């Protein structure tokens, strides 16, 4: 990809009000439209009814009813979360926006704000088990706080609108909201204060720290402010990554298999598909899992190194010494390139890579990866005529 093309992308990314080419968490969307990471179709949370997850009873107010919800998750909640992680049924993994009550909150109880992705809602309510708090759920179209904040749906306008709609000023007599720190990219605290009178307090990164934060006199400690990216946190991201890539992997595998079948027969075709799948899975699964231990800062470099590792393994396990020179060269060029490409893709899921960094990696990396794959294919074809 040429530099001018990257520049064009940059420009298109900068126009939030033009029609974004692909609804994606990386392309800034117009505020209040449903984004891609959530359900495909525009799905909203709908209205609060007695069917909301964890519903116990109604609390009556002069301004309306508020559902009192349970803070403990059921087996169905866990099962739903598991399905959602694999990308199934995301359409229904959404809760209605509005005000909820956990425990028996009164006029002084803290108000916690979250997104209407069901997993965000579940994480927060289970973290607040045994407490008396209000939970204000914003309409983020079923997308988690971090992704929705990046797009602006977990944003100032939605928060202001939701405060007005739930008549929060009549429900509590204080004027403070507790927000997740990772929601800050979408919220302008001073603007919320100006427009609603509620001050925004960024409590913690993880919902699990909320009780500790409240017990600490509503003061954030340094560790609550530090974002983490543990092996487990990376692990749970992988299923969706795999599911998203399945279609293109299946297509390319079939093409590779057929081409190799026509050229070199069944065994060679199977080998080619195995080599391809190994490289892709190394990039999608192994690189994210082993992220801190693979040398380099660049994801493309990490991917390429892992790809060389995979190719070496293949070389030793599949009688590499009997491969022809062009085949060997092609493998060591194309496989690391494929692996690097998929590893680079994972930058979209992390909480420490910057867009400028990814742009730089793409500007330098994509032409190299493309050339490596093309040269690899040419070597394989040429090898047949040697």
């Amino acid at each position, binding site marked *: 990809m040429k530099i001018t093309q990257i520049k064009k992308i940059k420009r298109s990314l900068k126009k939030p009000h033009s029609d*974004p080419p692909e609804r994606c968490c*990386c392309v800034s969307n117009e505020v209040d439209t449903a984004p*891609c990471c959530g359900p495909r179709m525009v799905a909203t949370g709908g209205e609060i009814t007695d069917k909301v997850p964890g519903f116990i009873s109604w609390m009556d107010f002069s301004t309306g009813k508020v559902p009192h919800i349970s803070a403990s998750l059921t087996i169905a909640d866990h099962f739903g979360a598991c399905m959602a992680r694999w990308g199934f049924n995301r359409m229904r993994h959404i809760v209605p926006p509005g005000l909820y009550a956990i425990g028996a909150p009164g006029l002084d109880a803290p108000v916690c704000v979250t997104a209407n992705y069901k997993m965000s809602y579940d994480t927060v309510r289970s973290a607040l088990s045994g407490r008396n708090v209000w939970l204000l759920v914003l309409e983020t179209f079923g997308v988690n706080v971090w992704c929705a904040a990046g797009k602006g749906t977990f944003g100032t306008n939605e928060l202001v609108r939701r405060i007005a709609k739930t008549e929060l000023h009549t429900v509590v007599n204080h004027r403070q909201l507790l927000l997740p720190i*990772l929601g800050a990219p979408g919220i302008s605290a001073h603007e919320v204060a100006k427009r609603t009178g509620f001050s925004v307090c960024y409590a913690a990164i993880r919902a699990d720290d909320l009780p500790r934060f409240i017990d600490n006199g509503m003061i954030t400690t340094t560790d609550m402010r530090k974002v983490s990216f543990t092996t487990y946190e990376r692990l749970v991201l992988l299923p969706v990554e795999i599911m998203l890539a399945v279609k*293109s992997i299946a297509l390319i595998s079939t093409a590779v298999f057929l081409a190799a079948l026509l050229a070199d027969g069944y065994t060679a075709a199977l080998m080619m598909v195995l080599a391809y799948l190994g490289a892709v899975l190394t990039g999608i699964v192994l690189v994210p899992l082993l992220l801190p231990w693979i040398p380099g800062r660049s994801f493309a470099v990490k991917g390429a190194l892992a790809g060389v590792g995979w190719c070496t393994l293949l070389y030793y396990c599949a009688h590499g010494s009997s491969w022809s020179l062009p085949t060997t060269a092609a493998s060591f060029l194309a496989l690391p390139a494929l692996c690097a490409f998929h590893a680079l893709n994972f*930058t979209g899921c992390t909480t420490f890579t*910057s867009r*400028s960094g990814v742009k730089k990696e793409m500007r330098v990396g994509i032409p190299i990866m493309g050339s490596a794959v093309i040269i690899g294919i040419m070597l394989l074809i040429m090898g047949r005529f040697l």
Partner: protein
Amino acid sequence: MTGLRYLKNVATLKLDQSACIGCGGCLEVCPHQVFALEGKKARIDDRDACMECGACAKNCPVSVITVDAGVGCASGMINAWLQEHNVRGMKGGSCC
């Protein structure tokens, strides 16, 4: 974040220290502890740790921070490029 660091010298984060009122808002929202307060002024302490999320710029009451914010994701940028050039069907899937 311990252990995981991204590329050096790429972050577009800028701070006009002269107009900073030292409210500490940026320190409160930054998940990577990029800022430090020095007397009554914020200072960029660790620019390479910045992930360009934009939280600091959005929460600075006097707008003295600028950053080219956005979630960086390779397939999103490729999709944008393909669509802009009317290449269809190649990468029709979504990212993230």
